[in-house]
C-alpha cells in the first residue's frame, strides 16, 4: 500500500507550489503538482491600452520580468509592424541575457544548493576569511542561544545526506555568499540600459528608451568580465562537484524526455537567426517547431473555460471549487504530447541540431569530465549542468554583443498602434519557452493569453490523464525517509519552478 506525503509549501522556488507524492516501498509511484496562487492577469489585461502589456506582464514574475516584457513586445511588434534598430535589438539581448545569468545564479546557489551543501559545516570553519568567520560566529551564537529556531532561515531543514567533505561545504557556503554579489551585479547590468530591476521600464515595442554611450558600454564590459569569471571559475565547477558527489541524480528525475524550445536572443533583424534555436525533441527525434500545435487542457485545472484551446483562442475563467481539479496551472501540450521546457530543452535542441559548436563542445567537455553520456543529461543533474553551460554561453555572447553597440545610433524605431491587430510573441525565459498571444480591437487589448515555462513543467494531468513533466520526473524517485523527502525536492527544484509565472 502506498503512503501519501505532502510537500507543502515546496519552498526555495518562486511562489506557491504544493507537491503530493504517493510512496510505495520507498519509491514514488505517483505524483501531483499543484499551483496554489492565482491572480488573473489575462482578465486584467482585457480592455487596456496594448502598450500597457509589456509593463503589466513583467509583473507576472519578479524573477524573470524581462522575458515577459520581451514576449509582450514581440507580440506587439508583429501587430504594429515595427522592428527595432540594431542597437535596440542588441540592448534587448544584453538586458535579457543579464537577467538569464541573474536568474540561473540565484537558482543554483540560493534555491537549489541547500539541498546538497551542508550549511551547518560553517561551524567547522578554521580559515581567516572575515565574512565566513562572521557567519560562523553568528551560527554558533544562534545555536547556543535559547531561540526556538536558531539560524533561520538556514535551519531547520530536512535531514538527509548532504555533502560530507567540510572543505567542499565551506566552498559551497563561500560561493553562496559570492553568488549574492554576482546576481546583484547581473541585475545592475540589466539596469544600465533597463532603468531598474526587477521590472524594467525602458523596454518598448520598437526598441529601448535608453541611449548607447561609450561610458555605458565600458560599464557593461567590466560587469560582464566579472560575471564570466564567476561562471567559469565557480559555477561550472560547483555543478561538477555536486554531480561527482551525487552521481545517482543522473538517473533520478528523468521525466518525460520530450523537449520544446522556441529559441531566443535574435542575431538578425527579422528574428530568423537566434543564439539558441527553436525545435522539438520527441523520443530523441528532433523536429521543427510549429506554434499551431500548442493547446492548453484544463480538465484537472481550476478553470471552467473550454479545454484544449489554442492560446490564440484561449480562455481563463476561474472555478475554484471545480471537481477533479487540483491546480491553478493549466496543462499545455504540444501535439497532445507532454513537453519539458527550460535550459535543458534549449541545450538538447541545439546539441541534437549540432550546428552550435559551443553547445556541443561544452556539453561534451562536461560529460567527459564526469564520465557520462549524452542521454544522462535527461536527469536532475542534467538540468543543473545545462543551466550552468547556458550561463557561460550567454555571458560570453554578451561580451560580443556589447562590442557591436554603436553610440549615437538609434535605439528605438517609432510606430503607431493600429485599430485592430494580432501578434504572437515567442521567446524564452530562464525557465523555458514563453509565449504571449495578443489581439487588439478598437485600439484596446481584446484578447491576451500567456503560456509560461512552468505552466509546461509543473502542469497537472491533461485531459487524457497524462501527468505533467515534474509529476513524471518524480515517479520512481527513491525516498529513504518519508518524513524527510529531500530526494523529491531535489527533483522538483531542478526544474526551477516559478508558480507566479505558471498560473499568472
Amino acid at each position, binding site marked *: 500500500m502506498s503512503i501519501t506525503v*505532502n510537500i*507543502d*509549501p515546496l519552498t*526555495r522556488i*518562486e*511562489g*506557491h507550489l*504544493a507537491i503530493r507524492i504517493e510512496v510505495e516501498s520507498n519509491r514514488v509511484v505517483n505524483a501531483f503538482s499543484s499551483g*496554489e*496562487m*492565482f*491572480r488573473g492577469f489575462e*482578465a*486584467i489585461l482585457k*480592455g*487596456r*491600452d496594448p*502598450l500597457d502589456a509589456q*509593463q*503589466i506582464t513583467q*509583473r507576472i*514574475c*519578479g*524573477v524573470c520580468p524581462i522575458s515577459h516584457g520581451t514576449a509582450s513586445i514581440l507580440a506587439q511588434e508583429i501587430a504594429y509592424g515595427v522592428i527595432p534598430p540594431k542597437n535596440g535589438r542588441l540592448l534587448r539581448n544584453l538586458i535579457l541575457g543579464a537577467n538569464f545569468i541573474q536568474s540561473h545564479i540565484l537558482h543554483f546557489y540560493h534555491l537549489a544548493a541547500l539541498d546538497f551543501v551542508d*550549511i551547518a559545516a560553517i561551524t567547522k570553519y578554521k580559515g581567516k576569511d572575515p565574512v565566513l568567520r562572521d557567519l560562523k560566529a*553568528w551560527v554558533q551564537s544562534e545555536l547556543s542561544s535559547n*531561540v526556538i*529556531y536558531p539560524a*533561520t*532561515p*538556514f*535551519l*531547520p*531543514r*530536512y535531514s538527509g545526506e548532504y555533502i560530507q567533505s567540510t572543505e567542499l561545504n565551506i566552498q559551497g557556503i563561500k560561493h553562496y555568499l559570492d553568488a549574492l554579489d554576482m*546576481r*546583484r551585479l547581473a541585475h545592475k547590468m540589466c*539596469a*544600465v540600459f533597463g*532603468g*531598474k*530591476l526587477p*521590472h524594467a*521600464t*525602458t523596454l*518598448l515595442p*520598437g*526598441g529601448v*528608451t*535608453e541611449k548607447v554611450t561609450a561610458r555605458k558600454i565600458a560599464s557593461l564590459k567590466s560587469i560582464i568580465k566579472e560575471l564570466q569569471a564567476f561562471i567559469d571559475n565557480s559555477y561550472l565547477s560547483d555543478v561538477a562537484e555536486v554531480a561527482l558527489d551525487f552521481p545517482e541524480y543522473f538517473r533520478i528525475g528523468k521525466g518525460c524526455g520530450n523537449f520544446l524550445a522556441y529559441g531566443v536572443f535574435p542575431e538578425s533583424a527579422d528574428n530568423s537567426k537566434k543564439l539558441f534555436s527553436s525545435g522539438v525533441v520527441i523520443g530523441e527525434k528532433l523536429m521543427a517547431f510549429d506554434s499551431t500545435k500548442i493547446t492548453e487542457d484544463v480538465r484537472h485545472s481550476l478553470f471552467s473555460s473550454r479545454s484544449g484551446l489554442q492560446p490564440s483562442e484561449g480562455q481563463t475563467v*476561474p472555478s*475554484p471549487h471545480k471537481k477533479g481539479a487540483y491546480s*491553478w496551472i493549466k496543462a499545455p501540450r504540444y501535439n497532445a504530447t507532454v513537453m519539458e521546457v527550460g535550459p535543458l530543452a534549449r541545450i538538447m535542441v541545439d546539441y541534437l541540431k549540432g550546428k552550435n559548436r559551443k553547445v556541443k563542445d561544452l556539453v561534451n567537455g562536461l560529460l567527459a569530465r564526469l564520465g557520462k553520456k549524452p542521454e544522462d543529461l535527461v536527469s536532475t543533474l542534467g538540468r543543473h549542468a545545462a543551466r550552468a553551460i547556458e550561463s557561460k554561453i550567454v555571458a560570453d555572447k554578451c561580451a560580443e554583443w556589447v562590442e557591436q553597440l554603436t553610440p549615437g545610433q538609434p*535605439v528605438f524605431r*517609432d510606430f*503607431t*498602434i*493600429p485599430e485592430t491587430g494580432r501578434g504572437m510573441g515567442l521567446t524564452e525565459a530562464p525557465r523555458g519557452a514563453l509565449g504571449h498571444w495578443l489581439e487588439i480591437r478598437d485600439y484596446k487589448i481584446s484578447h491576451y493569453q500567456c503560456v509560461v515555462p512552468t505552466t509546461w513543467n509543473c502542469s497537472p494531468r491533461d485531459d487524457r490523464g497524462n501527468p505533467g513533466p515534474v509529476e513524471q520526473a518524480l515517479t520512481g524517485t527513491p525516498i529513504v525517509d518519508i*518524513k524527510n*523527502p529531500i530526494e523529491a525536492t531535489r527533483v522538483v527544484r531542478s526544474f526551477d519552478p516559478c508558480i507566479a509565472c505558471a498560473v499568472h
Partner: protein
Amino acid sequence: MDITRRKFLELSAKMAAMMGLGTTAIPKIAEALEQLSAVNAPVLWLQGQSCSGCSVSLLNSEEPGPAQILSGYISLLFHSTISASTGDVSMQVLNRSIDHGGYLLVVEGSVPEGMPEACVVGGELFTEQVLRAAKNAKAIIAVGTCAAFGGIPAAENNPTGAMSVPDFLKKNGVSKPLILLPGCPAHPDWIVGTLVHLLKFGIPQLDKKGRPKMFFSRLIHDQCPRFADYERENFAKTFSEDGCLFMLGCLGPVTHADCTLRLWNSGTNSCIKAGAPCIGCTSENFAASASFPFYRKATLSKKTGA
C-alpha cells in the same frame, strides 16, 4: 547647476533620506546598528498574491547586503523563497513562530479576499494565515504596491477580489502598527531603511497613507533630472528622445517616491533617467483603471488616424 554641485546634493540627500535624519546622526546610527547585531529581531515574511519581485529587490540591497541583513540585523524566521526548510518543517517553523508572537510581520502581495482559494500556503487559505500572523505581530510592513494598495492583482477586471493588506486587516478588525512601502517593486533601501529605523528608533514618521516620509514625502517631478526641460517646455515627442517625458505619459508629477535621487540597482539608473516615463508604480492607483494607460501613445495613434 553644474554637475559637481548636483552630484554633491544628490549624495547628501541620499544619505539624509536613507537615515531619515540629518547627516550629523550618521555615526550614531552606525553605532546603533552594531548594537542591534547582538540580538536579531525576529521577522516573518509571508507572500500572498505576489510576483516575489520585492523579495528579489531586497536581495539587491548593498551595504548591508542580504547575508549581512540575515546574520546581523534580523532573524528571518520564514521566507518561502529563501528558507532552507520546506514542507512540514516550514509549517512547523511558521506555526510555532506565530504562536510565540513578538515578531515583525512583512507581507508581500495582495490578499484574495473575494476568492480565498486563489492563494493557499501549506493547505491553509492565505486569508486566514495572514490574519493569524497579523494578530500576534508587533508591527506589520506591507511591502510593495500589491500589499500596500492592492496593485495589479486588485486592478479593474481582476477575478479574485484582491485587496491590500491594510484594507483586509481593517475589514477583519485587526489593528496593528502598520507601515506601507509601496513600489513595484519596493526599493531595497526603503525596506532596509524602514526595518532598521523600526527596530532601533521605532516607527518612522509616516504620511497620511502610512508611508515613511523619509522616502515618500516628495514628488518624483520635483526631483526630476529632466525638470529643466519641463520648465523650458522642451518635451520629448517620442521614446528615446531628449526632453521632459510628460507628453508621453510620465506620471512623475503625481507620484511620491525618491527614485530619481536614490537611483536603483546600486545607484545605477532610474526609469526617467533612462528615458522611460514614470508609470507611477508607488501610487495608490497604480494600474488600477483599465482606461488610464501608462503611455499616451495609443491616444496619439488614434488622433493621427494611423
